[in-house]
């Protein structure tokens, strides 16, 4: 890479900064409903948590207690 500052050097340094703010402004300009996109992710997460909860419940049910020794 050339020694003086290049656009790619700048991207490397600032890559993750203001990603959300930029994307929200871009989507607003082009008519994308960001809140709906955000809700979709939350719904996916909630569904995953629900499934996870069901699985662990099933595991707990299968576990049997050892009979106590007298």
């Amino acid at each position, binding site marked *: 890479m050339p020694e003086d500052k290049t656009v790619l050097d700048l991207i490397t340094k600032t890559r993750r900064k203001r990603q959300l703010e930029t994307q929200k*402004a871009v989507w607003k300009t082009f008519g994308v409903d960001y809140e709906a996109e955000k809700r979709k992710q939350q719904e996916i997460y909630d569904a995953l948590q629900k499934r996870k909860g069901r699985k662990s419940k099933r595991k707990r049910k299968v576990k049997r207690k050892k009979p106590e020794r007298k």
Partner: protein
Amino acid sequence: MKKKQNEIPTVNFGLLGEENYITDYVQVHNPKLQRIAKRLRGKTNDQIITAVASYVAKNIKYPLDRHGKPTAATHTKCFKWWNGLYLTDVDFDYGWLFPNQTVASEVKRGICFSSACLCTSLLRIKHVEAFTVLGVVLKTKGKRILGFHAWTETVKTSGEHIVIETTVHPKPAKLVPAKDMYGEALPVTYDPLAWFNEAGYAEDKSKAKKYEAVLNA
């Protein structure tokens, strides 16, 4: 666009942190992309541009995390050693996908750079003049700098340059004349800093210096 520079810069944003030429991100010889491009029909540049923009919008989603924040983090595992353990297991907080990775059935997602490079690749396979552009997005009112972005710039049959915003899905974004997108006609203004396709790379160094202080703050 500035004059192409002789030295092609490299970036190390690959899945394994590997280094690649920036021009490698426009893949015109990839067999899968060539097959996709073959299916996208159009007689004129305008028809091809519409078909490519629709394909990208319909098939590629923008990756958001569960909090609704853009995510470009990657985690790659290979060479299984034992139950969940791999000899190579690397993760990065930021990564770029090649167009053929973006269209892989297990992925079908990409941040602005990845979807723009896919769009540029498909247009270049169809012999339409196109570039991936790296630039800054500003609020038109007040000129506040928002952050970095990438998009595709292409040329219509009439010779007019237009911007394809590739992060909008499932319906494609309205194709905006480059003079409007760069010329403060919309609520946000795109300021191009670098242009590339498979044939070369060009950048505006003076703009990089101008934005450095603000973006690093």
